[in-house]
């Protein structure tokens, strides 16, 4: 991917990354949703084209196409200009992400052909997938925060469409609303972050070379000297002095921390971090391929990707980074605890996704964006695999999702079971599978940053192995617990082929092929960024990948195996759950608390406003005005007798008054 030669392929080809799914969406929206076969063909074809272009662009080193200027306001000395362009970043970070999004996306599209084969609305389904592909590639290649934000909302919208795909089910409609509202709330913070970014940087561009310039030449020296001489660098000239940036917090300008927290708010919503995590488990109401693609592998990782994209600015705020690491850590551990006591196969995987996203965000907070992206990539493979395999199980059992109603599936649907096993081991961090490498890298960064994160992360790894073993043992072994589980049927090849491909990647994605693995790839990217930007970092300790020293290197793997064995001992050949931890089964009562406080409070506020609207606004002001007019009209009606002579009399009286006023009142 670092070929130096210029490619003979025209850069404009990259636009088709966006145009192909967009064209498929438009075609399905306008006409093809009535013809499911054609819609399927258009959608899968566009995904395949996207993947092909992503391959070409990544491996042939195609330069990004020229950007198209959308909005341009010139700046002045006192105010920054506004220049919004629709362009493409094709740096290593974006290329890696593009390959994952389009690759996993294509596999999920293919899987959906089989999974949705009997659904009458599948034309609409594929339309939703295509608009998702369009928005997601848009986020990945966005050159500035406004462009990113547009596509960011686009994925939120397509997520809404697909969660509520079976909109006749109340729970699906409610889940779609919940996801959308949670995301909108968090995106409000993101918007504030973007505006602060613009105010501080004078630009909205997140292109790496521009960020690097800002960072190296202007920001970093100032942040380190800001308490020394109180001077702000050129970059912040239009902000004024440090007082205008809200003073100093943790030794850095408060506005900078504010910006970092604002941008992180966007990630909190999209990546479902605590306390906005509640929408993701409910999002499992959507079809399983949607859960695999959008709510596990790609969209929810967009928040992590965005953090890595603006990483050079994030690390300017120690406080912001601490918040990011802590929230990530909290989500990782909390979600894993909840997953221990869930019974719905998709919900367990959803909480596992939350937990792994928490890992990635914690990695960013622990100064390891390369580890975060590495884990994002491996996670995309094995989590998509797990969801698709779960979909295959659900398909085999005719829409049964409760693991306690499964059992004995291992021999009956062997291909699904074996691929699920691989995904489960990779997710748990079983040695030499992909998750092992990425998780250990994150824990190494965490250890380097602060041992607290290492220990919580290791405990989470223990829990991950525990609940995944529980899921696997209960669902695939023991006696069949329901009639449906006795005669499952293996899914068709169009569904199992993606499983096998993903299983292969779940195994090898973590490997380092003589320095060419995904981990090295992102590490190289991170080093390049640090080289461009980070000469002033205090030490060179981040230049080499961190490693866990001696004993600590064994801790995570030992905990993983311990977790797996504990779970095996507890759950082997059981027909009911020997553990009964109510607070975990009830997900720490988050939904209840939100229902009581936020939803209840919102209801009360809405009732008050409704009362104000119907009585004060509509009653007093609008109807009141109408009634006053009507009353005056009724009064005037008394003068309208229909008698000609009365009119003549009033007319002459009026004339007399006019004459009197004209002649005698001067």
């Amino acid at each position, binding site marked *: 991917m670092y070929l130096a030669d210029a490619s003979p392929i025209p850069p404009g080809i990259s636009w088709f990354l966006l145009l192909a799914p967009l064209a498929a969406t438009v075609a399905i929206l306008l006409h093809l949703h009535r013809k499911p076969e054609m819609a399927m063909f258009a959608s899968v074809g566009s995904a395949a084209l996207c993947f092909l272009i992503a391959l070409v662009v990544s491996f042939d080193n195609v330069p990004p196409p020229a950007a198209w200027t959308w909005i341009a306001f010139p700046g002045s000395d006192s105010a920054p200009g506004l220049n919004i362009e629709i362009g493409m970043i094709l740096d290593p970070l974006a290329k890696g992400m593009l390959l994952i999004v389009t690759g996993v996306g294509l596999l999920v599209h293919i899987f959906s052909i089989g999974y949705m084969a009997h659904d009458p609305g599948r034309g609409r389904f594929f339309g939703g997938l295509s608009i998702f592909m369009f928005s997601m590639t848009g986020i990945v290649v966005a050159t500035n925060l406004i462009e990113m934000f547009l596509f960011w909302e686009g994925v939120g919208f397509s997520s809404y469409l697909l969660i509520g795909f079976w909109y006749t089910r109340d729970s699906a409609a409610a889940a779609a609303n919940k996801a959308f509202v949670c995301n909108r709330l968090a995106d409000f913070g993101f918007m504030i972050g973007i505006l602060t970014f613009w105010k501080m940087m004078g630009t909205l561009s997140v292109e790496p070379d521009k960020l690097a310039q800002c960072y190296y030449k202007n920001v970093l020296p100032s942040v380190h000297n800001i308490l020394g001489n109180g001077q702000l660098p050129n970059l912040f000239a239009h902000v004024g002095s440090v007082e205008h940036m809200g003073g100093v917090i943790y030794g850095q300008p408060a506005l900078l921390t504010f910006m970092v927290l604002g941008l992180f708010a966007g990630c909190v919503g999209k990546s479902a971090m605590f306390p906005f995590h509640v929408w993701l488990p409910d999002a499992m109401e959507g079809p399983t391929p949607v859960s695999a693609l959008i709510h596990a592998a790609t969209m929810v990782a967009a928040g992590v990707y965005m953090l890595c994209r603006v990483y050079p600015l994030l690390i300017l705020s120690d406080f912001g980074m601490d918040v990011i690491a802590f929230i990530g850590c909290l989500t990782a551990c909390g979600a894993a605890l909840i997953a221990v006591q869930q019974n719905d196969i998709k919900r367990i995987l959803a909480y596992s996704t939350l937990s792994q996203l928490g890992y990635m965000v914690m990695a960013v907070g622990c100064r390891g964006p390369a580890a975060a992206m590495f884990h994002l990539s491996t996670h995309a493979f094995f989590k998509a695999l797990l969801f698709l395999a779960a979909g295959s199980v659900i398909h085999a059992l005719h829409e049964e999702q409760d693991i306690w109603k499964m059992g004995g599936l291992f021999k009956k649907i062997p291909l699904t079971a074996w691929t699920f096993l691989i995904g489960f081991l990779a997710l748990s961090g079983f040695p030499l599978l992909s998750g092992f490498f990425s998780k250990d890298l994150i824990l190494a960064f965490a250890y380097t940053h602060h041992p607290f994160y290492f220990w919580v992360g290791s405990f989470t790894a223990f829990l991950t192995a525990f609940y995944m073993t529980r899921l696997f043992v209960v669902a695939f072994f023991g006696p069949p617990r329901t009639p449906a589980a006795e005669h499952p049927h293996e899914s068709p090849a169009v569904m199992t082929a993606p499983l096998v491909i993903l299983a292969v990647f779940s195994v090898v994605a973590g490997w380092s092929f003589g320095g060419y693995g995904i981990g090295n790839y992102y590490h190289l990217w991170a080093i390049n960024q640090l080289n461009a930007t980070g000469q002033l970092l205090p030490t060179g300790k981040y230049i080499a990948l961190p490693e866990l020293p001696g004993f600590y290197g064994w801790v995570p793997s030992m905990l993983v195996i311990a977790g797996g064995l504990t779970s095996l001992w507890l759950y082997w050949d059981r027909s009911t759950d020997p553990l009964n931890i109510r607070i975990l089964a009830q997900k720490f009562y988050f939904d209840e608390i939100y229902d009581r406080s936020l939803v209840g409070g919102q209801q009360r506020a809405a009732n008050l406003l409704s009362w104000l609207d119907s009585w004060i606004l509509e009653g007093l002001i609008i109807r009141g005005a109408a009634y006053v007019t009507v009353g005056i009209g009724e009064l005037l*009606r008394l003068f*309208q*007798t*229909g*008698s*000609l*002579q009365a009119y*003549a*009399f009033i007319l*002459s009286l009026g004339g007399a008054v006019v004459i009197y006023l004209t002649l005698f009142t001067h």
Partner: protein
Amino acid sequence: MEITLDHYLAVAAVLFVIGLMGVIMRRNLLIIYMSLEMMLQAANLTFVAFSRFFNYPAAASKFYDPADGQVFVFFVITVAAAEVAVGLALIVALYRLKETTQVQNLTTLKF
């Protein structure tokens, strides 16, 4: 006694008020109509009187001509004649419809 402008105006005023009273008080549509004509003639008389008593050379200017008043009278008479033609036709039509010309019976012009 010399007859002055004031006398003419007084006669015109009396004539006007008689017409107005007739319009307001009388019940027969034809009488009302005649009273209306009387009011118009009161106005005509005023025009003519002003025209007659203007100091001709002093008042003449680029904008006024004392003869204007007399010309107006012809206009009023012409318009009144046209009005009578239309008005009488309406009254006849109304009579055919309602079989009355008493205004107390013609009060449908209301909401």
